[in-house]
């Protein structure tokens, strides 16, 4: 698993773009060899922190594409600040990444 992110200062707003590595199984697909349904498995929540404070959070269902992409804008962080991004999936697996505002 991995989380990649870019945070870029545009005027007084920071544009954050994040890519999370995850299969995002819908629970609707059928395994071609066994004929059994592949159970749903997806990221449920992802949160962005700045100085330990939550600045943005998202809830995902299985309809978000494989390797989810997320883009959002926040006001407050300055160039050089670090944003911490954390995700958790439906099996309770967590992942995280730090990005520096450029």
């Amino acid at each position, binding site marked *: 698993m991995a989380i990649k992110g870019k945070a870029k200062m545009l005027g007084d707003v920071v544009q954050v773009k994040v890519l999370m590595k995850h299969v995002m199984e819908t629970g609707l697909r059928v395994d071609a060899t066994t004929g059994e349904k592949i159970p749903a498995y997806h990221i449920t929540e992802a949160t962005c922190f*700045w100085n330990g404070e939550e600045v*943005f959070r998202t809830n*995902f269902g299985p*309809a978000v594409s*494989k390797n989810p992409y997320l883009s*959002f804008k*926040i006001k407050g962080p300055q160039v050089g600040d670090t944003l911490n991004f954390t995700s958790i999936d439906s099996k309770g697996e967590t992942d995280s990444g730090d990005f520096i505002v450029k």
Partner: protein
Amino acid sequence: MNLTNLSRRTALSWFAYLGALSVIPSQLFAAWPKDAFNSEAVNDAISELYGQAPQDSDRVKLKVPEIAENGAVVPVTVSTAIEDVESISVYVEGNPNPLAATFELTPYAVASVATRIKMGETSNVVAAVYASGNVYTATQEVKVTIGGCGG
């Protein structure tokens, strides 16, 4: 991060840091809105999430392709000039469970989000914006074609 490369002291201080974080687990991972994600209709999911019936608004800007290049990755952008937005959510009418994602905005956040979603068939995509106790929506159709060739 490779823990084996860290000195014992660094590792310990890391665990101490993680420990400090773990006292606020509810803030880290608030409850995933299961009932909304399990709803089978857009309006049911909206009322599960926000306890409100939606109203259409041209102040909600929903950008989706008219024809999806690929149903597995449909780019969606939602933005609005409405003030004090607390939450934005995206729905695919034709999916078995329409709610795809919700975005919870803190006062730091600007009401402009983008993601990529899966669509099984041609259907309406709905964006909902929750602000000051009201739910505003915008709807647009996205055509999804099924691939013929392409190895």
